[in-house]
């Protein structure tokens, strides 16, 4: 049974096709994955990466095509069968139980037991053996809520290994990690590879893919564009394969012409959901005509900070001024009316009302202005004209403004939000994760718009988990860690290494309660 050596493909997909109503998610895809390689699959959002992986893990059945494992044709009817075949998936969003220990999380679902009683010793032995073999440094009795994000990811990987996976699929594994953590992950992955595991690495971060993968397969719009050796390609060529046309990788921008301080934050503290301070004594300011970026690993107070600035969350202590006006205690509407455009981090949750039409969403928040309504009636003609204008100016691709906005792609939805907020002619734009989940074309567009706004003399505050984005977009950058701005600099002044240290808090003053 056991076939080893080069030339034998552990996985072969032949002419895999999967259709959904209205689109072909996977169009006759051929893919060969060799045993013991790290194979990256790249592509924009909607290119069909996750559909393909769901077919591999049995969550979807292909409409056409064949799957071969070790040269034998198989049908994979569900995740349980996938793992039986040795295929395990590490999800982007961790599926861990925070109050359980590492050990409990790993064995959960396939506990060694006799007569319904957990054999804890056996479980512990198995898990610790795994940690040793792959050099995963984890305390098996630590509760998961005490772990860093990188460590939690290791637990996820161990979960899959514990179930006997020979093939590991990692879905955007670096999305939530700091640069140092990415390095550690790569060390772990190379270890796994050396031990004979096969790794499928899904990503759209080309630098990382180029550094970790042996071979790279590119998907575009449901089709396989091709597979290349990582050593024989570069970022430029890869992104062209992904998008189908040359892409600007560097953001084009002039020196900023800054004016007066538009947003001033003084000693701001904000409570988080659990009643613990999420933002602590933050002070900084954003000038007209500059982009101020906030870098940091997610969950370090970014959300709370932004929500406090736009009035969605109560300010605990401190002061905030927009255009010289104190805004603490003001309502969302009052703050936005001062001249604030807000692009929320979760556009489905905060930015749009999905079941409502495109034109209704185009005036969300503007519907009470005298231009669009009186208390007794909305001015439908003006609203429709406004919506059509936004759609035209921001090049939103849609069938009709009369359809619910949930039918639009993420990029087009974001364009509607951007267009709507810009139509308020804001002095300050607060953009939280403005390009999350968008494809390269839309990302370019959003970046250009933000820079254009800056060049028009608006102040722009950008929060992003994507460090590269923050660095290339911003004129000044603040790093947030555990609710504090621990460093502030210009993007050219510091190395990636150093920023990573700030993001992980290893350069901040030690204090009690960190990570508690």
């Amino acid at each position, binding site marked *: 049974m056991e076939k080893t050596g080069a030339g034998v493909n552990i996985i072969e997909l032949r002419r895999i096709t999967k259709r959904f109503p209205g689109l072909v998610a996977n169009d006759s895809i051929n893919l060969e994955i060799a045993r013991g390689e790290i194979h990256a699959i790249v592509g924009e959002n909607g290119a069909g990466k996750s559909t393909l992986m769901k077919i591999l893990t049995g969550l979807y059945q292909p409409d056409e095509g064949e799957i071969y494992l070790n040269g034998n044709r198989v049908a994979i009817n569900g995740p349980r069968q996938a793992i039986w075949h040795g295929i395990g998936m590490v999800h982007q969003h961790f599926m861990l139980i925070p109050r359980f220990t590492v050990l409990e999380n790993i064995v959960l679902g396939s506990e060694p037991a006799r007569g319904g009683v957990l054999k804890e010793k056996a479980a512990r032995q198995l898990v610790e053996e795994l940690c040793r073999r792959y050099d995963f440094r984890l305390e098996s009795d630590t509760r998961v809520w005490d772990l860093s994000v990188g460590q939690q990811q290791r637990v996820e990987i161990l979960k899959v290994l514990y179930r006997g996976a020979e093939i590991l699929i990692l879905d955007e594994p670096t999305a939530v990690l700091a640069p140092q953590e990415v390095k550690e992950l790569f060390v772990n992955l190379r270890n796994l590879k050396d031990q004979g595991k096969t790794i499928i690495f899904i990503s759209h971060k080309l630098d990382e893919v180029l550094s970790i993968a042996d071979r790279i397969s590119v998907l575009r719009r449901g089709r396989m564009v091709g597979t290349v050796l990582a050593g024989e390609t570069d970022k430029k060529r890869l992104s062209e394969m992904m998008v189908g046309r040359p892409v600007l990788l560097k953001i084009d921008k002039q020196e900023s012409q800054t004016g007066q301080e538009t947003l001033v934050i003084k000693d701001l503290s904000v409570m988080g959901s659990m009643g613990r301070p999420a933002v602590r004594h933050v002070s900084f300011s954003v000038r007209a005509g500059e982009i101020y970026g906030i870098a940091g690993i997610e969950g370090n107070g970014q959300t709370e900070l932004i929500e406090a600035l736009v009035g969605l969350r109560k300010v605990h202590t401190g002061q905030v001024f927009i255009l010289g006006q104190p805004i603490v205690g003001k309502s969302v509407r009052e703050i936005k009316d001062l001249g604030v455009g807000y692009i929320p981090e979760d556009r489905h949750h*905060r930015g749009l009302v999905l079941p409502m039409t495109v034109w209704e969403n185009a005036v969300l928040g503007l519907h009470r202005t005298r231009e669009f309504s009186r208390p007794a009636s909305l001015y439908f003609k003006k609203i429709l004209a406004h919506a059509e204008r936004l759609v035209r100016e921001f090049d939103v691709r849609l069938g009709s403004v009369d359809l619910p906005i949930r039918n639009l792609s993420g990029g087009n939805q974001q364009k509607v939000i951007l267009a709507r907020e810009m139509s308020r002619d804001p002095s300050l734009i607060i953009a939280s994760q403005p390009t999350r989940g968008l494809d390269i074309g839309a990302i370019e567009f959003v970046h250009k718009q933000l820079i254009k706004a800056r060049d028009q003399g608006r102040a722009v505050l950008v929060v992003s988990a994507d460090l590269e984005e923050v660095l290339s977009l911003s004129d000044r950058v603040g790093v947030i860690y555990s609710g504090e701005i621990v460093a502030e600099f210009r993007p050219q002044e510091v190395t990636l290494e150093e920023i990573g240290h700030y993001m992980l808090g290893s350069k901040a003053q030690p204090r009690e309660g960190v990570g508690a």
Partner: protein
Amino acid sequence: MKKRFKYLLLEIASPFIAILFAVLIGALVMLVIDKNPVEVYRTMFLFSFKRLDSVAIILFGMTPLIFSGLAVAIGFKAGLFNIGIEGQYLIGTFLAALAGFALKGLPTFIHLPLVILMGMLGGMLWAWLPIYLKVKRGVHEVISTIMLNYVSFSLIHYLIADVFMDKQQGLAPGVGNPIIRLPKIAATAVMPKMHSFLSNFGINLPQHVYLNWFLVLALLMAVGYYFLVWRTPFGYELRAVGHNPAGAETAGIKPGAVFFKAFLLSGAIAGLTGLSDLLSYFGYMDLDFPRGYGFTGIAVALIGKNGPLGIVLAAFLFAFLNRGAEGVQAFVGVPMETIVILQGVMILSIVVFSSVMGRYIRQQEKKEAALGSAAGKPGVTVGAQGGVK
């Protein structure tokens, strides 16, 4: 645009298909109890529609259901499930009855509107606590309104039987027992029937029919509901909050305030539900005052898909079924429960059919949107890389 019309048609067709389906299931039930379904349905129709007074009785019967249906619907639109219409209309009816018998010597044009306003006030009052608890304390409105329904039942019982009971009902000593009821409302608070108005058009209704002007008020209310929800900025906020409170909040709308207004409005409309019976048919409130309009109102709103026309039609449907049930019970010997089963199946099948249809329409829309965006996309088409050189 042509497609939109097709969707609209499909959406309208789905409840009718569902009703047909329910009629078939109902026929099966009748076969099981050894009745001829054709005969039963025929009797239902003839009994209901052959005579003018029967039609008027159906119109009288749909009046409270329009109010309760609208009350439920306006809650639904804001994302609130007001299951407490029942309690709200009982309290509203009580306050209206109180103002109806306690105030004397007012002219009709003051007394009657005042009594109606008292009804709305009562409904609002009973809606205030649940929405206050929801907005300020996060208590789910379904729980609090259900419990307040029970409180209202007992409270009304107490108020009627122990506090305000009419002790002088004018019965001769030794003749019968007095009814446990409130005193009769003053003549100045009675809602006039539509008989004299309709006789202008040659429609002459007998005196045992109580069709009154509340029907017109209910229809006007449905029109007002349409304008409020779909044409005003407040209605826009209502729908935005109903679909996505967090998104609305981010846009500067205060969900709590919208919840408050919508729920009080719902309660106020609910307060009108019992008034047609009180101010026209009974003239007093007793312990057996009709119950259940509130719960039927949920079904009405559901079947009417929270739209004004749909609610009016659904209210008509339920009133017809109730009337028809009396007919088949009397003439064909089919127990009323059969019709209750029919109603139940109807509600279920309409919910299922419209959800299936909704899913289909959404799918189609998605397709259309995908086509639209693909057509508008220059340069980046599938496989263009090789071709465009």
